[in-house]
């Protein structure tokens, strides 16, 4: 086990360059100096600016759109409405399901939520477009809306049978259990709130479209644009070298993209469209609001006999989003009897979307709060009850874990946190007016696996170039792929240039579900191995090579130099060797697709999620794991909760770069603190509209809200999860933070808060 503190980058330098080293982000300097050019910073000749007009009602029909004044406003080039925008084709969904053969219009006539795009104004300047957009007059025939899950009209929703998980006889076992608890847990609408708002620059050249757009999935989005505009996939180029945060919200081409690309096509000029911060709250979906009831039957020793779980999440009127609420419930603890079912309820909202650990995050809030409640009822330490019910194998899939270092995580976290010193009674620890509480909760996230492709080149100067259409939204792809290629070829990472974020490069699937590092390190490793083989092959066999006479059957490449394994004979740099054999480069493409894959398989793999490998495929069940130990201080007069200490131990398997992994874990924990204490879309129920749609009113944590966070890696290489032994990193950290905080708040105050966020009025 390694313990890393918050500030530890002492290993920067030569050691850091290898895979597993603490190399700092290679894209850091470009970002800090402003040299990194983000997608919408493209300055193109003739650029025009589009601004969206949004619905101000939540439900009904657009009666008329009066564009006369807007069209007459200075600088206006066109006003797009459902009647004037060009007709597009409906695109397939992210599974690649063939779409219905019908037109698609990104501007709505039928209004199903407040903030829906109804029109757009394109002008010579951004300011002119903003001014003219305010002059577009939309009239509506309004109908009653379903505000949210608590709306009387919402009903029970649609059962999602695919979410049902059952074994044993859970209701009967519950009825027979000596100890029974049942509670309801709610999470509100939450928003990804990336620093960089959504937007794009679209340019047509003939029937070729180039889109500069922040993207978590270039190939998937290119496919959608291609299908909308009925052009070949190859004609669409997505460019996204840097992304200012996505958290799940930038994986799909969205209606604003269709509007901008349509405008560019109609005008014959490149068009830029950037959402306002307000629009980012309705232009796409945040995390769906959820409700869960968790019922646990146990014996008096706290051994779980039965879990009955019912979940509901909201979706939109005409879109479908399922937030899998039974995902953690069904695997965290061993139970002989289990039942989980889920419904989805339609409300007048934009269709919700992926946000850091969709499913696992709210699911963990339910089960990890409930087991804490059980611990108090049976009078067992909350850590001890988790160990008693430890699942030795996947209780749902009934398969062995590939690796599960959760026990180690509990042990390491408890030790560093000092859990043994906890006084069990609620309200028993205080410091003046501050009630102190200690809480624990576990988290998990499945290892999502897919296939990837990369190009590795060894260039004349001995440097190495890696190309992939995968992306880096801050998680460190540039850096770990440089480390992977460096280690595989045998050069310093400083001599590797990684190029990402252009759909012309070797293809990649979605960067979501914490899969990218595992997929891409595997692909780069494969391509780099084959480049290295070519290099060594040339050195051995080319008559012009200084190694030719040696008759060796292998050579060693290290630190950019080639020599024989025994150290006798020549020692030349890669550049010298390439020169001697008259080559200006070596190039290798590597992919991890099955050998007999067709071109169609490849297209499907990179542009849909249909070919992702299930995490329970084969003999193993694959997950990352973590345990959070959190101290809170609650002011007994004011009800304010401050997180004062966090120790988290996490199992993400092998870490390709601990510094970056720790940074992502901490980022997840910080986001979890926000979720627990601050974040909530606040709805005006009369208008069906989120009113805190800006970053002054939608609160995310500031530095002052975040204590020292200690993260401990307890992972071991997991050969079943990825080529190089890593498991998921990015989403794991957030899972379990909110229940750990809620549990700590209970310990501090004796009040159980089951509705997030835990704001002061709930404790006062």
């Amino acid at each position, binding site marked *: 086990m390694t313990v890393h503190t918050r500030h530890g980058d002492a290993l920067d330098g030569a050691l850091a360059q290898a895979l597993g080293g603490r190399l700092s982000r290679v894209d850091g300097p470009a970002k800090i100096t402003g040299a990194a050019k983000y997608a919408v910073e493209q300055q193109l000749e003739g650029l025009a600016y589009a601004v969206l007009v949004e619905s*101000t009602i939540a439900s009904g029909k657009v009666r008329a759109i009066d564009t006369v004044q807007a069209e007459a406003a200075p600088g206006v080039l066109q006003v797009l409405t459902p009647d004037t925008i060009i007709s597009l084709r409906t695109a397939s969904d992210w599974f690649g399901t063939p779409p219905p053969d019908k037109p698609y219009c990104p501007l709505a006539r039928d209004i199903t939520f*407040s903030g829906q795009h109804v029109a757009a104004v394109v002008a010579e300047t951004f300011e002119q477009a903003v001014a003219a957009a305010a002059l577009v007059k939309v009239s509506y025939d309004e109908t009653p809306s379903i505000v949210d899950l608590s709306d009387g009209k919402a009903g029970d929703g649609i059962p999602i049978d695919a979410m049902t998980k059952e074994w044993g006889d859970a209701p009967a076992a519950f009825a027979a259990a000596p100890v029974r608890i049942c509670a309801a847990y709610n999470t509100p609408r939450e928003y990804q709130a990336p620093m960089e708002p959504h937007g794009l620059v679209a340019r047509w050249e003939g029937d070729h479209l180039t889109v500069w757009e922040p993207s978590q999935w270039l190939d998937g989005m290119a496919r959608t644009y291609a299908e909308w505009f009925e052009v070949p996939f190859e004609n669409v180029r997505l460019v996204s070298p840097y992304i200012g945060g996505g958290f799940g919200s930038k994986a799909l081409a969205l209606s604003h993209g269709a509007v901008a690309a349509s405008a560019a096509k109609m005008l014959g000029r490149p068009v830029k469209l950037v959402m306002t911060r307000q629009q980012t709250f309705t232009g796409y979906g945040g995390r769906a609001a959820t409700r869960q009831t968790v019922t646990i039957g146990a014996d008096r020793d706290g051994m779980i006999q039965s879990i009955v779980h019912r979940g509901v999440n909201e979706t939109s009127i005409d879109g479908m989003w399922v937030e899998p609420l039974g995902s953690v419930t069904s695997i965290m603890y061993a139970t002989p009897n289990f039942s989980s079912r889920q419904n989805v309820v339609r409300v007048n909202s934009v269709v919700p979307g992926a946000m850091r650990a969709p499913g696992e995050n709210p699911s963990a809030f339910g089960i990890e709060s409930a087991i804490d409640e059980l611990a108090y009822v049976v009078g067992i330490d909350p850590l001890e009850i988790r160990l008693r019910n430890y699942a030795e194998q996947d209780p749902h899939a009934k398969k062995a874990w590939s690796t599960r270092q959760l026990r180690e995580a509990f042990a390491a976290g408890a030790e560093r946190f000092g859990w043994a010193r906890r006084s069990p009674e609620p309200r028993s620890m205080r410091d003046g007016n501050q009630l102190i509480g200690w809480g624990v909760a576990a988290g998990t996230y499945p290892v999502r696996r897919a296939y990837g492709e990369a190009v590795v080149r060894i260039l004349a100067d001995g440097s190495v170039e890696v190309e992939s259409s995968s992306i880096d939204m801050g998680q460190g792809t540039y850096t770990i792929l440089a480390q992977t290629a460096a280690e595989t070829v045998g050069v310093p990472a400083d001599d590797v240039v990684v190029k990402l974020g252009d759909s012309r490069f070797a293809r990649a699937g979605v960067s979501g579900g914490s899969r990218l590092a595992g997929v891409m390190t595997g692909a780069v490793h494969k391509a780099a191995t084959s480049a290295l083989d070519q290099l060594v092959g040339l050195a051995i066999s080319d008559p012009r090579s200084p190694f030719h006479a040696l008759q060796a059957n292998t050579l060693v490449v290290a630190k950019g130099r080639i020599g024989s394994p025994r150290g006798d004979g020549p020692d030349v740099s890669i550049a010298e060797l390439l020169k001697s054999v008259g080559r200006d480069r070596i190039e290798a493409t590597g992919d991890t697709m099955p050998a007999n894959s067709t071109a169609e398989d490849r297209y499907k793999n990179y542009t849909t999620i249909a070919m992702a490998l299930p995490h329970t495929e084969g003999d193993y069940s694959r997950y990352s794991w973590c345990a959070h130990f959190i101290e809170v201080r609650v002011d007994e007069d004011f009800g*304010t909760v401050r997180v004062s200490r966090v120790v988290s131990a996490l199992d993400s398997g092998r870490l390709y770069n601990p510094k970056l992994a720790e940074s992502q874990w901490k980022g997840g924990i910080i986001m979890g603190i926000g979720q627990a204490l601050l974040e909530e879309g606040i709805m*005006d129920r009369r208008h069906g509209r989120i009113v805190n749609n800006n970053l*002054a009113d939608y*609160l995310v944590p*500031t530095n002052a809200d975040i204590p020292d966070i200690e993260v401990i890696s307890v992972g071991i290489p997991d050969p079943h999860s990825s080529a190089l032994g890593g498991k998921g990193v990015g989403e794991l950290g957030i899972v379990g933070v909110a229940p750990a905080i809620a549990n700590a708040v209970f310990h501090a105050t004796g009040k159980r808060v089951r509705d997030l966020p835990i704001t*002061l009025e709930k404790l006062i």
Partner: protein
Amino acid sequence: MRDFSYLRATSTDAARQAAALPGAMLLAGGTTLIDLAKCGVAEPDTLVDITHLKGLDRIDVSERGATIGALAKMGHVADHADIKSRFPAISEALWQAASAQIRNMATIGGNLMQRTRCPYFRDPANFSACNKRVPGSGCSAIGGVTRGHAVLGTSDACIAMYPGDLATALVAFDATVHLGDRRILVDDFFLLPGTTPDREHAIEPGEVITAIEIPGSAAARRSTYLKIRDRQSYEFAAASAAVGIEFEADGRTIRDLRVALGGVATKPWRARAVEAALKGKVLDPETVRAASLLAVEGAVDHGANHYKIELAPRVVARAILKLGETA
């Protein structure tokens, strides 16, 4: 945002003349005004930039009191050594406000004039009813999202909370606003909404705030600003209290007490009833807590903001007791 013209004032008189014209607005740090222009709330025809005026950023502190120029930056005033020692509540109110970046831009004059954070006020495209924006149009907040709205000083026309921290400390210490030669108590400068919530300040078109003046006092010297909020920083008050105290020679009996509330009222709210109840009393927790309840006499909630009525007296009591501890 629509087109407007920009005029850089060369003298205070020129600023007054330019600002008197219809559609003209003074521009200081711009942290409120530009924001409101982007929301479509402020629609100036002319911006009169006063940031280049000389001499309006002075901070003079003496035994008698402090005079702070309207263009002094929030950050400078917060960090000023004499303000910190003689008027700790003023410094604390300022450094706990907004963010470091905003405090480096924002001026004291602009700070007094900041507008409410009522979400309905700030979103004209979606909510046409707002008496503060359009007199007689109604109030969208009543019956809507009210968690941040006022519980004191409200009217049927408007329940918007005044969000500023500095002005709360200013009313506690009887500060005055200088509008050129005209002087007016800060307490009188802010108006209750009544039936005219669009009129927030006793300032006439063409008047420019030139300075604020805070009389020195023993209570100001032993003072504090306690701000309670959902987030630890960069967040408006859920409830706050500016409190100053002066003890008799025994160090326990309260000779002078100043209490003002922020985050709970339609204007900076002086809590004179609490002051009166405690003057002459010996400071002890029970007495202080009981008297602090008077801070919210007459409070009216609108559902989600009910917690402010519970919270505000506790904030007042804690602030008073905290000052007592240092006696």
